[in-house]
């Protein structure tokens, strides 16, 4: 009698263990969570066959390397209407500030920080208009104007380098091409305007009445 109880206990424990280690599910539950899945399946990442190159299109790009990130940004100089600036700015600034001659940039008003912090020559180089300048007076190329912005906006700069701030050009697939600061923000008025939403769902209003 005792012996048969032992067998039953033995059998029950075997059944219990089998239930414990076998799942009724199919193989969907291979990973405990999606992070485990990303880690496991990304370990032997071999690259993908699709590419963003075709979607970047006619946009001329330059490659930049900042920290451990290397990516493309749109080239800027050819997009500025009257570059090179020295074509007009042949004389020093104070000599050009008179009532005669053509007016230029009269429509630009600076809405960026306050008067104490910034004016035109915080970024523009009065002695060489073809380049920008850092706070300490070093030359910054118009193509790499992000170096200027990142002097103050260093948090945004970190996010932009990693890809958390700003937009991609083309698609998700490599190579990475990202818009640079001035492609979205007007440097003279960087804040986005408020506006009306793109659409209003009138059907939803009816349904909820």
């Amino acid at each position, binding site marked *: 009698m005792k012996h048969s109880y032992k067998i039953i206990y033995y059998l029950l424990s075997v059944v219990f263990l089998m239930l414990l280690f076998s799942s009724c599910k199919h193989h969907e539950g291979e990973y405990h*969570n999606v992070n485990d899945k990303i880690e496991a399946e990304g370990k032997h990442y071999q690259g*993908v066959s699709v*590419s963003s190159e075709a979607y970047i299109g006619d946009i001329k790009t330059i490659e930049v390397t900042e920290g451990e990130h290397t990516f493309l940004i749109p080239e800027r100089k050819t997009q500025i209407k009257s570059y090179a600036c020295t074509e007009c700015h042949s004389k020093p600034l104070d000599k050009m500030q008179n009532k005669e001659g053509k007016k230029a940039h009269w429509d630009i008003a600076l809405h960026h920080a306050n008067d104490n912090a910034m004016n035109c020559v915080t970024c523009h180089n009065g002695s060489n208009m073809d380049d920008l300048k850092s706070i300490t007076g070093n030359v910054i190329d118009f193509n790499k104007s992000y170096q200027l912005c990142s002097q103050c906006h260093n948090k945004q700069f970190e*996010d932009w380098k990693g890809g958390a701030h700003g937009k991609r050009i083309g*698609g998700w697939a490599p190579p990475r091409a990202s818009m640079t600061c001035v492609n979205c923000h007007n440097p003279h008025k960087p804040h986005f305007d408020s506006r009306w*939403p*793109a659409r209003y769902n*009138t*059907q939803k209003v009816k349904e909820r009445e």
Partner: protein
Amino acid sequence: MSSSKKKWFSLNLSNKSQNTTSCGCGKSSGGCGSHSPTPNETDQPKDGFDQVFDVKMSRRTAFKQLAASLAIGAGAVSTSCSVIAGDESKEKAQIDWEEQFKGNYKLMSDEEKQATVDRLVRSYQLRTGKTLNMSAKNAEKDVLFGYAFNISKCQGYMDCVSACVEENNQDRNSQMQYIRIHEMKDGKGFNFNEADDNYYHEVPAEGHFYMGTQCFHCDNPPCVEVCPVQATWREDDGLVVVDYDWCVGCRYCMAACPYDGRRFNWSKPEVPEEEVNKNQHYLGNRMRKKGVMEKCTFCVQRSRAGKNPACVEACPTGARIFGNLLDPNSTIRWVLENKKVFRLKEDLGTEPKFWYFMD
């Protein structure tokens, strides 16, 4: 033990000999259902006609199948056998017939997928005289799509919603939208009860923040689990998709989704011919019919080609980030590893591949 007929069921655990009469039901040959299938039976998934015809069915289901098919069949046969019907209507009838009896897209071979896509393109051409570009591109190796949404960047402009509707050929009459943008009060957290997802005033409104929801393409999707006909499933690149031709419209998935990610076609979806996006995918933005489910597919027709979904491309604030989770150098991976990210209703274990973060 099992040779003598018993009226109860007993597990025959201790006796593992290759007894031909080891089945609990006492029979030595098939029929009780507890015999494991022989390997050659499971070798290949059935497809096409086999899925429909090569199954054991009761008289009742057989009649049901027949009745359903008879309507289309009779029409098709009468047209294709008719001497007065033109070649085009015969071809149309042939396509309708083959479409009616095609299998589940999930189980199709690549040739069969291409064949059904070709039929749909031809059918559209016959009906409207216009040509489509429809793809049957499969998931690529080493790709798992993920999405990140920056709630401190979104300004509620709803450009994403517009782009989505245009890209995905959603019904214009019912104004179906995959994306919802919720306007929420600052300091109240994610309070969906008090949020407004259909505002119309200048945005961003003072004292509010905006967050978008859509299908989160869960890695453990509850909608897939409840589908009685397996018309929805998770692809290898993580996209949760619907075979609109296999969906029976029971809306179980809609009820199962904890994120309100699924939409139903209560009426025949209509898109003005000149607004139809002709760049389509079988699992994506091809034209749907009345009575089937649909939802965001991360624009499968775009994403599998390497592009960003339409919402990501349309967003003027850069609040939407899309990419390959398996690529260690992708921007989405950087966001997940360096920003403080969270997901909606994480405790449900649905494992959405859609993360929120702040600056």
